[in-house]
């Protein structure tokens, strides 16, 4: 796994974070995000838009918020939840987004672990399984918040993961 690029949001915040011109030389990709939203609330949805576009996604999630557990399915671009402006000051949520076989021209499977932060109850943590049924290789990835902007000091790092060649693997 190799760190390709880190984006740090500067003064004034940002509506989105984009990794563009992603090299096609890796097997898988991982994004690690530390973020906080300007939304006036506890949770904001963090979306991942492959090649800048929404759609072609189906997902199932398991999430908890300190007092209850839910599981559901959506056809959105949700990958995690980000704490909003009413959570404890200076707390940032984080997420790890694993994207398999991103250069494939068939469906891709995405796995996400995400956690909000709040020095109180009622902030969401989730694991999410996503099927992206688009048949275009991912050359750019955009992170955006559904209802707010990324605050200053939010960061996202893109990693490339290159699988090894076959060695003494035994297949039966």
């Amino acid at each position: 796994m190799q760190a390709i690029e880190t984006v740090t949001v500067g003064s004034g915040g940002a509506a989105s974070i984009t990794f563009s011109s992603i090299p096609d030389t890796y097997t898988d990709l991982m994004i690690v995000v530390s973020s906080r939203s300007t939304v006036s609330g506890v949770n904001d949805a963090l979306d991942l838009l492959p090649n800048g576009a929404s759609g072609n996604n189906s997902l199932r999630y398991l999430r908890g918020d300190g007092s209850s557990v839910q599981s559901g399915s959506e056809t959105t671009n949700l990958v995690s939840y980000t704490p909003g402006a009413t959570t404890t000051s200076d707390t940032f949520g984080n997420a790890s987004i694993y994207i398999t076989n991103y250069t494939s021209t068939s469906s891709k499977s995405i796995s996400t672990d995400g956690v909000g932060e709040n020095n109180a109850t009622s902030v969401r943590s989730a694991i999410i399984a996503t099927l992206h049924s688009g048949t275009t290789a991912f050359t750019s990835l955009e992170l955006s918040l559904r209802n707010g902007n990324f605050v200053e000091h939010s960061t996202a790092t893109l990693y490339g993961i290159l699988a090894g060649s076959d060695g003494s693997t035994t297949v039966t």
Partner: protein
Amino acid sequence: MAQTVYDPPVSTYIPLQTITLGASASSVTFASIPQTYRDLVLVINGAMPNSGGEPYARLNSDSASNYSAVRMTGQGSNYSAAAFTSNRLGFFFTYGSELANVIVSLMDYSATDKHKTTLSRGSQAAGRGAAAWASRWANTDAVTSIAISHEGGDYPSGVTFSLYAIEA
């Protein structure tokens, strides 16, 4: 916005081996795993056996009931959790042949003074949903081989298995 591009990129995972199945297979074994790293990461990606069940591993060919696990699963319409002991190291539970990925972190695999623990994340959006498993192998031996199978039968052609190492 500050942007840092790592040129050249900075390595963290070290690729050990990978295989893409050219034909269906009942098991894949990573043998003679080097003992020079701290942790291992296994990534399985592809279609699953249609009959469903657990993708799992046996460490060092141990098929005794030395594995224990706790897991939580969200299937979309419901969720569940369980704890159990088994004769295999479970990662996930798949349903149907839909595309899935499983990411397994095996901690301190080369240590000889502790039981081995794993954290697994399974994702099958059109099947079983999202799951997290924590497992333990009750053995202090270093892990030298990992044999991967599926309760539901053969892995289909095209499934990939990749093993990575992490240095401390």
